[in-house]
């Protein structure tokens, strides 16, 4: 499937986020090889240079390593992925709180509503 991208963020960073989410969810297994740059480019409908840049960024973060002639592999590094997961959560909370404040919602209301919402969801699941 060809993906849609947000305008405000570089495409390569959105691909990095997507691959990290795949790793956190387990659809991309730790220790396994990522799709080749070409395969990923075709799959996502994205310029191969952009995929290359995303892989380089993942390598810089320490999430993957490139083995000569073999490809790019996800490193078994639970601490790193735990940290990244926390960072992503913080980013989501930041956005949520900012949006709610813009609507003039107080912190207490925000927490109450979130609590009620999550509890409602849990009831739904049962």
């Amino acid at each position, binding site marked *: 499937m*060809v993906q849609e*991208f947000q305008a405000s963020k570089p495409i390569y960073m959105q691909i990095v986020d997507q691959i990290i989410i795949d790793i956190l969810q387990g659809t991309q297994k730790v220790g396994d090889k990522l799709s080749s740059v070409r395969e990923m480019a075709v799959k996502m*409908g994205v310029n191969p240079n952009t995929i290359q840049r995303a892989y380089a960024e993942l390598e810089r973060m320490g999430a993957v390593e490139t083995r000569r002639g073999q490809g790019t592999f996800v490193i078994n590094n639970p601490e790193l992925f735990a940290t990244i997961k926390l960072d992503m959560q913080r980013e989501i909370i930041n956005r949520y709180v900012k949006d709610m404040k813009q609507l003039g919602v107080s912190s207490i209301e925000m927490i109450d509503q979130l609590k009620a919402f999550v509890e409602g969801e849990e009831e739904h699941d049962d």
Partner: protein
Amino acid sequence: MTIKLKGVTKKYGRDYALNEVNLSLQKGKIYGLLGPNGSGKSTTLKMIAGLVFPDRGEVSLSNEKVTRRTAEQVAYLTELDMFYDNFSVAETINYVASQFASFDLHKAEQLLAELKLDPSKKVKQLSKGNRGRLKLVTALARDTDVVLLDEPFSGLDPMVREATVKSLLRYVDLEQQIIVIATHEINEIESLLDEVIALYYGDIIGQENVEELREEQGLSVLEWFKTIVQEVEERAV
């Protein structure tokens, strides 16, 4: 491979198709040539392909002036319908192969299979979408350092568009090639491009790296394009 336009001017009657245009394109990149209809996109591509020559200025490929002879190094997909109705798909492929030494028949067969084109079908039996695909096959099957695509997606439905984008990505060789895609459908191809060049009635009004636009200005290509066109139009008032 590099493509250079130096002070290129082309007039059709009294109108400037291109006015003192300077442009430099490097290998390893996919360029988007953007602009409204009549802004000079097709003229630019035809000049690189050696099908139209400038009134003033020079067009060169790796420092060699573009002539009819350099056309062999350039694959060019025209926006026009260019096939013989009575040819079959296979005959069309063989005909194009006979015209260009750089044509790779094996690659053409792979592309036909991938895009689900039946070689025995007559061109006149093909749907518009399939004619578009056939055109793309004839351009992508050539082993050239320059690939020019003029409105490759126009008139194609979204599914066919996606298939064509994927074929393009599967076969492009960015170690060697320069790809230039001229289009006015900007959103469709943004994620394909390294750089964008905006043409506006014969003038280049901007050239940017797509990811830098997002990173530094928070703009998509379409937003950027609208902004600079507006600036030009306000200045003209």
